[in-house]
């Protein structure tokens, strides 16, 4: 075959092929895989990749949503729709203790994330005995993630030991684990935020409408623009929701996620705004700012995804 007849694969084609290869390896080698599904744009891409990897079969694992009950209404709607369309089982887990104690983002701050998400995830994985969990984390998101393997092992207590990671060569993944250990698998490790957006654009992957600008009721609080999504949002004295054209760069629990004022109502406009913006993606989330520069590294050692 001569040069002229070669097919040139684009970077997105190579990244897609890599992610699909990883998902198939996990399904072939793990006993009980699961895909963590947070309904964000990275989850949307992960789900789409899973459908491609196993087509015409439905992906041979369930979706797991570790819910906090504090997601935006639009997120719950898309979640249920996508589970239905993909033919996959949807498992929703609520930490019973957080439920009972009424842990919420307004009154409990960091405890909210810890109990609903970090603890909730551990409990859910233990409950269903999942030994491999797909996550949509990317190496471009944060410093300690840049060093994490694609197959990342967790101890029985779900801790991560960054100094003792298995070597990972070529595309040969060692999925063998010791009793009690589980694996977090990150098929889109090598994608950037732009890649994710571009992939959504090219493949018309459905995402939550909150990523697009629209007039929504908001209040400004502690330097963040918060959306008043339902009646559970406690207004402080003097606060009156104001209609603003806003959108979200990342989606978490609604009071913990700040919106940005924007008029970007189409995907290319959103991508345009993302590329021209000067604040990095996770800045909208309060969670990474704890514990100085090493915030995420510490959280992960404790078992945060």
């Amino acid at each position, binding site marked *: *075959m001569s040069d002229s007849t*070669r*097919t*040139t*694969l*684009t*970077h997105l*084609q*190579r*990244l*897609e*092929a890599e992610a*699909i*290869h990883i998902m*198939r*390896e996990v399904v*072939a080698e793990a006993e009980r895989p699961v895909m963590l599904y947070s309904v964000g744009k990275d989850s949307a891409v992960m789900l789409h990749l899973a*459908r*491609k*990897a*196993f*087509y*015409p*079969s*439905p992906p041979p694992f369930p979706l797991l949503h570790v819910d906090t009950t504090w997601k935006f209404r639009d997120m719950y709607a898309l979640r249920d729709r996508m589970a239905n369309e993909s033919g996959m089982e949807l498992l929703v887990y609520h930490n019973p203790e957080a439920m009972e104690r009424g842990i919420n983002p307004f009154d409990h701050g960091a405890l909210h994330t810890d109990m609903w998400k970090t603890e909730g995830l551990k409990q859910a994985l233990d409950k269903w005995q999942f030994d491999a969990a797909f996550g949509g984390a990317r*190496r*471009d998101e944060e*410093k*300690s993630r*840049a*060093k994490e393997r694609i197959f990342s092992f967790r101890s029985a207590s779900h801790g991560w030991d*960054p*100094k003792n990671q298995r*070597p*990972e*060569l*070529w*595309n*040969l993944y*060692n999925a*063998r*684990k*010791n009793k009690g250990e589980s694996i977090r698998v990150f098929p889109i490790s*090598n994608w*950037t935020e*732009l890649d994710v957006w*571009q992939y959504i*654009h*090219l493949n018309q992957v459905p995402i939550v409408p909150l990523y697009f600008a629209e007039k929504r009721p908001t209040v400004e609080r502690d330097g963040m623009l918060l959306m008043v999504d339902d009646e559970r949002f406690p207004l402080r004295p003097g606060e009156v929701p104001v209609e603003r054209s806003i959108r979200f760069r990342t989606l978490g629990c609604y009071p913990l996620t700040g919106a940005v004022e924007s008029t970007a109502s189409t995907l*290319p*406009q959103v991508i*345009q705004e993302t*590329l*021209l913006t*000067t*604040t*990095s993606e996770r*800045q909208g989330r309060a969670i990474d700012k704890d514990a100085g*520069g090493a915030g995420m*590294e510490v959280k992960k050692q404790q078992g945060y995804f």
Partner: protein
Amino acid sequence: MSGDVIYQTEALIAEDIDAYLEQHQHKTMLRFITCGSVDDGKSTLIGRLLYDSKMIFEDQLAALETDSKKVGTQGQEIDFALLVDGLAAEREQGITIDVAYRFFNTEKRKFIVADCPGHEQYTRNMITGASTADLAVILIDARKGVLTQTRRHTYLCHLIGIRNIVLAVNKMDLVDYSQEVFDGIVADYAAFAKSIGIQDFTAMPISGFKGDNITTHSPNTHWYKGPTLVDHLETVEVITSQDQDKPFRMPVQWVNRPNLDFRGFSGLIATGSVKPGNAVRVLPSGKTSTVTRVVTLDGDLDEAVAGQSVTVCFADEIDCSRGDVISIADTPPQVADQFETTIVWLNDEPLHVGRAYWLKLATQTVSVTVQHPKYAVNVNTMEHIAVKTLDLNAIGVAEIATDRQIVFEPYEANRTLGGFILVDKLTNATVAAGMLHFSLRRAQNVHWQPTDVTRADHAKLKNQTPKVLWFTGLSGAGKSTIANEVEKRLAIMNRHTFLLDGDNVRHGLNKDLGFTEADRIENIRRVGEVAKLMVDAGLIVLTAFISPFRAEREMVRKMLGEGEFVEIYVDTPLEVAEARDVKGLYKKARSGQLKNFTGIDSPYEAPPAPEIRVNTAEMSAEEAAEYIIRQLMPLK
């Protein structure tokens, strides 16, 4: 990616996002590594590439400025290295421990940079980063020239098969951009490169700190006419496009079977391309068929090429499953079970010669043993040194034998079918990476001879179920005595037995073996093979060996059929065995006359779940034998 280009890119994003997306969509991808220690300015160079390509956001930049003043090594100036060193321990110590992956784009390409640690104790991390790279940037401090670590990094890159090497002579600002200095370093490097078989490399004078020849030609090096670093990275050919020219190979990952009407084979195409109508062969079986469809969610493809993940369907219902390799019919890859390899040891626990490990190559996982290394390579001097084993970070050439045939190609021809990892069967750690060079001919010439009187026939004639009763325990625990008692009772019951005793075997079959760890492993392997032959002959075999290592007992268990291996743990506390000291060996070991004695200066790994356990501190040899017989009943 020069200043102008950045401006144009930004302008394009701002003015015509659709045009920008169209451009970005068609970018190709290059994966490369940077080698060199922090002192060579490696992290600074990567930080510079990220910075110049606008991959640093404003808030990160603000944090960078604060951090630079607090812990940076560049005084009041921005320390780009801090962008790259991610783990807390690395920031504190100012070194890079693990591979970090970074991303940036130019107009033509997306880049993934593996930033690898340079110190010798992190060779394994460097190999990890290099294994997926298309290109290596080897940094040299212009003030220091070619150093030991330059040679080491170059050797490792060459070993792992990186054919595009960039020699970046850095810190040119600190030698007044001297052409003489540059030429001298390039000449030194060329001599070394040639000596290890590197034909070609691209040298360039740069300053990561000042930005010379990174994205634009520097006015300070008017004598340099070659490309800038980014120009070169944007235009060099990537491996996957070369792979398309090779014969079609696709390791099967998963059989896709949603219903009775569809049966497809999913995998990532390693080399070549495939179209409907192509005649293909499935290895190792050698069965052939024709491709009918190349299936994806986006519709069937007319052609798929190396680097794509697809699902293919055949015209015939032939056997094909995970681990098989689908190949073009007329030029299939080879199949063998013994190879010469280069192995890079990645684990703190050294190689155990003769021990069984898992070998994973493409989607095949088999049991493998490694022979005594022929030699190891001193990565600093390239000298071949005689070694008994391979320790952490050691690189050696050794023969390996797999327990069944695998589909392979030499690593030089095909990374996917020639690169493998070794996994410890007990700890599950990835302990080594290796590259297959060629198969050993004896494997191809020795064929299994089928016999008409089968092992089942042998067993039936003797009216018994053949087994191995494997007695393990400390020296002086009573293994031989109890095994002898058990055999006497079996003989009375008209059973056909044979007792293999540790001391006796060492007088004959194993008289060439000593008591080092490697020899002990080989001792057990041979006994296991002999026991297996006797089981094939229909016998109940009793063995009495200390067999201190769990891994070797498991190896023997795996040689035999389900239920044929009965592990009998003769559990005697060390004090009791030592007090008996029938052969006077403990005394010798305690006084240092006897080395590697189990329980004294060599470990005994007790079985966690033996089929039968007897405690000789609590029962006599006769009682233990009676107990074992009761556990074994019925014997048919």
